[in-house]
């Protein structure tokens, strides 16, 4: 009946007083999927999560959990568990009591509780910490207790509200991989809220990019990064160069020629149909454009002689700013040779030829 859909949001709206936090959101989250809601703070991702958990009820629209409408079902009657950003561990209980809480509320037989609590703590590698109090644990350990406390209930869906936000960078990277492998092992649907695009790209099967209460794009990390549907998504995920212009002509296959506002002739790939005369934005990722000393063969598209303005050597890459028309164009060159030879790297003031294949530039209409 639910066709493998764990959570189905249909036209969900949430208004607080006169603020519209969530504005007609529709999305379907599949069973067993690692799904992320990604966006800047205030984009409505946490409100959406709280509506799935039952802490907020939608102003209008419907939410289905495995086909059952749960619009106004209180949180304690939904088989959904949350890992909070602050962990929200109960300070007056031991780690084991924290993890057992959900099962106790469901009147699970004590023997089952003991077994499942042990299993859950083993799962997050905290088997030896059962009798500790939350405040005796490090941030990362507390985070894992929160995870065990939720997972022990075998929820239909696990909601995670920026659970790694309070951890330091190194631990966060470790936990990202750990969370992902944990999700694959338990096979539970994870809905993950974050404002960290790298985190979302690393872990997710699919990502919903949100802004101002709306979903802008839903897709795999590759789709989101390589084929952003609008300027906001292209800008929010990764880095990019934007060039505004007007469509001159369109060829079959979506390759279009564009005259930029400062008179450059550029070619790019249209994702959505565009017509000549339309105002568009070209988005070129810094790693998808190239700079060469020798002029590329005649007929190479998007080829412009440019001057290097600034360089930043960051180890794996060199970030180069070149002057293209009125703007600085950012491109990254991988340092694939190991050498101290100055000539192997670009220096400010040098000139070179900037170019990119037409399909590396995305034409955005919004």
């Amino acid at each position, binding site marked *: 009946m639910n066709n493998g859909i764990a959570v189905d949001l249909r036209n969900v709206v949430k208004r607080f007083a006169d603020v519209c936090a969530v504005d007609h959101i529709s999305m379907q989250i599949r069973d067993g999927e690692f799904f992320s809601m990604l966006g800047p703070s205030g984009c409505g991702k946490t409100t959406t999560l709280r509506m799935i958990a039952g*802490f907020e009820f939608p102003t209008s629209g419907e939410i289905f959990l495995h086909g059952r409408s749960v619009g106004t079902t209180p*949180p*304690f009657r939904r088989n959904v*568990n949350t890992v909070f950003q602050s962990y*929200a561990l*109960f300070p*007056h209980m031991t780690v084991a009591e924290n993890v057992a809480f*959900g099962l106790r509320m469901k009147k699970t037989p004590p023997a089952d509780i003991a077994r499942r609590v042990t299993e859950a703590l083993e799962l997050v590698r905290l088997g030896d910490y059962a009798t500790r109090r939350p405040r005796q644990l490090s941030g990362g350990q507390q985070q894992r207790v929160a995870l065990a*406390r*939720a997972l022990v209930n075998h929820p239909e869906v696990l909601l995670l509200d920026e659970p790694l936000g309070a951890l330091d960078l190194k631990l966060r990277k470790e936990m990202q991989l750990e969370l992902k492998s944990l999700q694959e092992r338990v096979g539970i649907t994870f809905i993950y809220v974050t404002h960290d695009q790298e985190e979302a790209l690393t872990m997710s099967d699919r990502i919903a990019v949100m802004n101002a209460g709306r979903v802008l794009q839903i897709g795999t990390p590759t789709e989101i990064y390589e084929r952003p549907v609008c300027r906001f998504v292209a800008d929010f995920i990764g880095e990019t160069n934007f060039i505004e212009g007007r469509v001159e002509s369109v060829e079959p296959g979506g390759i279009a020629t564009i005259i930029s506002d400062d008179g450059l002739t550029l070619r790019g790939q249209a994702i959505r149909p565009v017509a000549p005369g339309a105002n568009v934005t070209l988005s070129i990722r810094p790693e998808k454009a190239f700079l060469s000393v020798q002029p590329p063969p005649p007929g190479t598209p998007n080829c412009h002689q440019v001057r290097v303005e600034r360089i930043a050597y960051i180890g794996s890459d060199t970030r180069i700013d070149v002057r293209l028309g009125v703007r600085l164009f950012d491109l990254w060159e991988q340092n694939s040779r190991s050498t101290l030879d100055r000539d192997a790297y670009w220096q400010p003031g040098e000139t070179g030829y900037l170019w990119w294949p037409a399909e590396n530039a995305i034409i955005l209409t919004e």
Partner: protein
Amino acid sequence: MVDIQTPPSVRVVGGERRRSPGSLALGAHAMLTLAFLYAPIVVLVLFSFTRDSFGVRWTGFTFDWYVRLLADQRLLTAAMNTLIVALISTIVSTIIGTMTAMAMERYRFRGRTGFDALLYLPIVIPEIVMALALLAFFAFSFGLLETLFGIRLQFGLATVTISHIAFTISFVVVVVRASLKGFDMRLEEAAQDLGANEWQTFRYITLPLIMPGVIGGALLAFTLSLDDFVITFFTTGSGVSLLPVEVYGQVKRAITPKINAISTLMLLVSITLVFLSQFVQRRREI
């Protein structure tokens, strides 16, 4: 090898601490303050053990007055009444006070600010005013009930208990609210998320975490009820009496060390309760 030398400029200071005149004065001031606070009580306790039947001279040590106390039926009854009133009023005012504190901390409602002020008023209202108000209120209500329904009610333990509930609620609210201030609401959400309904959330999460505040409030209410004189005096009516009023009555007739003895016992109970509440509230910080 590293040669470590003591820099010649370092001189060893300390060993004896010089007392400045200022610090001496400060010490004396502290002692005087303590004496000012506790000298009367020391005298009271001391003279509960004197043989002198007027309790003004020290003529030797005796437990006699404490023994006589146990034989004084009026005093024992009054003590019993006091305990009953204190116990019931504490339970009721703790429950109402805790509920009120929760409502005030949790919800934004119309007239909340005004209600807040009203809640604290009983703490600052002169007790005599409160007592007279309660007296007038009961007299008026009883009159009304009699004329309307023919029900005759009288002053007694019930009226005292109700009055004590009325004036201790505010104190409970103050103490419980303080413990709710630092309460993390997300813990309640976490509990509900894990399947606890509203009652279970309160029972297993909220209450245990604010328990030190609740117990502190209850002990305060109990102590206040135990030694209240003014309100008790006005709302007991004739026939029943509570300990503070009974002691007052006996003092009017004759001052004997027996009064000192009963006062010492009351003091002991109050001090124990205060220490208990301090202890419970400190446990919170562990």
